[in-house]
């Protein structure tokens, strides 16, 4: 049987890709970010940790979808997905290879579970999908696992509620568990954390909110899922609403989880960045050492 073994969260900002392309991953600005991710890169290569398939939850940033088609929840069922040209040429990364059997199985199961998914058989994937892959796997010739892209509308209002996202995660878990092949499946929630990219309030960062969000995501997701959109907007900035996608990841892990790794950094370009490894408590592996890493402004490196 297939199982959701792991949930990972990651930033997906284009600046991370630019840092890789221009060889800046070790400089004063980007060094701490890539150091923080190195622990995840090393962990995922260990035996048993590498996923067969990642259900990669992200939002399309007006790349595959324009104003003519705004799917709330979509799933990519194609054999492969090309990196999108977002105005500066496609990111120089491998094509994303799908898993049509599992993707179609999940799509059908979700619809039967009252999630009326939008199915895509041709779709380019933008930085929302490919940056997390680069952050986890570096610059390989081919990505080391299959990927099922699951784009969520968080651009045109209203996006789905946190509660709906959390419930979608639970349905993804059930769908994966009814797939007969023996597969290690990850669900990744990407985007966030607090950031605002528009208007005079651009540059908003809310460390207190972010750290509380991480804590609740791990320990009390039922309460967190009830947070209304207005609170995300006020507290985490207009683009911080991407955080609802983390609840999809969390919903796919069941009631209790263990955080194997918990990295938070301010700032990555305009954003606060959070990268977590979570596993269902019953099947959780060893935590990384250090388990908690905070870096950036006014965040003393904490280890426990």
């Amino acid at each position, binding site marked *: 049987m297939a199982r959701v073994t792991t949930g990972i969260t990651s930033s997906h*900002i*284009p*600046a991370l890709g*630019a840092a890789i392309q221009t060889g800046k991953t070790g400089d004063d*600005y980007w060094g701490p970010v890539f150091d923080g991710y190195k622990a995840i890169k090393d962990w995922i290569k260990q035996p048993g940790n590498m996923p067969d398939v990642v259900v990669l939850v992200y939002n399309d*940033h*007006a*790349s595959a979808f*324009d*104003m*003519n088609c705004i799917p709330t929840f979509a799933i990519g069922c194609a054999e492969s997905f090309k990196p*999108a*040209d*977002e*105005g*500066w*040429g496609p990111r120089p990364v491998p094509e994303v290879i799908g898993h049509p059997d599992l993707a179609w199985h999940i799509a059908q199961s979700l619809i039967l579970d*009252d999630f009326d998914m939008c199915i895509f058989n041709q779709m380019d994937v933008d930085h929302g999908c490919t940056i997390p892959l680069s952050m986890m796997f570096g610059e390989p010739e081919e990505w080391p696992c299959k990927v099922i892209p699951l784009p969520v509308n968080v*651009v*045109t*209002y*209203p996006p789905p509620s946190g509660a709906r996202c959390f419930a979608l995660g639970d349905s993804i878990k059930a769908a994966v568990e009814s797939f007969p092949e023996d597969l290690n499946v990850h669900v990744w929630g990407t985007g966030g954390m*607090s950031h*605002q*990219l*528009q*208007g*005079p*309030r*651009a*540059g*908003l*960062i*809310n*460390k207190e*909110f972010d750290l509380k969000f991480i804590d609740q995501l791990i320990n009390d997701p039922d309460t967190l899922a009830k947070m*209304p*959109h*207005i609170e995300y*907007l*006020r*507290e985490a900035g*207009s*683009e911080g609403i991407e955080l609802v996608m983390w609840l999809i990841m969390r919903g796919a892990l069941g009631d209790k989880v263990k955080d194997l790794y918990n990295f938070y950094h*301010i*700032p990555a*370009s*305009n954003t*606060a960045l959070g990268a977590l490894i979570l596993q269902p408590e019953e099947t959780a592996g060893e935590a990384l050492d250090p388990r908690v890493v905070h870096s*950036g*402004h*006014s965040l003393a490196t904490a280890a426990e």
Partner: protein
Amino acid sequence: MTEKKKERINIHEYLAEFDDIPGTRVFTAQRARKGYWLNQFAMSLMKAENRERFKADEKAYLDEWNLSDAAKQAVLDRDYNAMIDEGGNVYYLSKLFSTDGKSFQFAAGSMTGMTQEDYAKMMIDGGRAPHGVRSIKGGY
């Protein structure tokens, strides 16, 4: 038949609250409708041949689109706040600043009234604090 919903969000209250956030224009249906062509113009810059035509003669390229004069002027001026007033959304408009070889940090900074240097420094110092910019009415 599953149970009927007991509580529903009041859409009018839901939308009205968005106007209470200082310095922020939420991309509502109303803005999406107003900005339809501006955003579609921006999307067209995802094709290299369109980027070349646009760069060769911006005004002529803009004239091919069903844009208001204000929207055209905002694009020519690279005034991102004005583009957002015209219904633009930053992820759509990113195709324009990417065509210019500019980053999200540049575009976001340009909307704050700060210099690029001051904006970059604010971010390195931990970003804009949320205190006092959460709610206009509440003042918190």
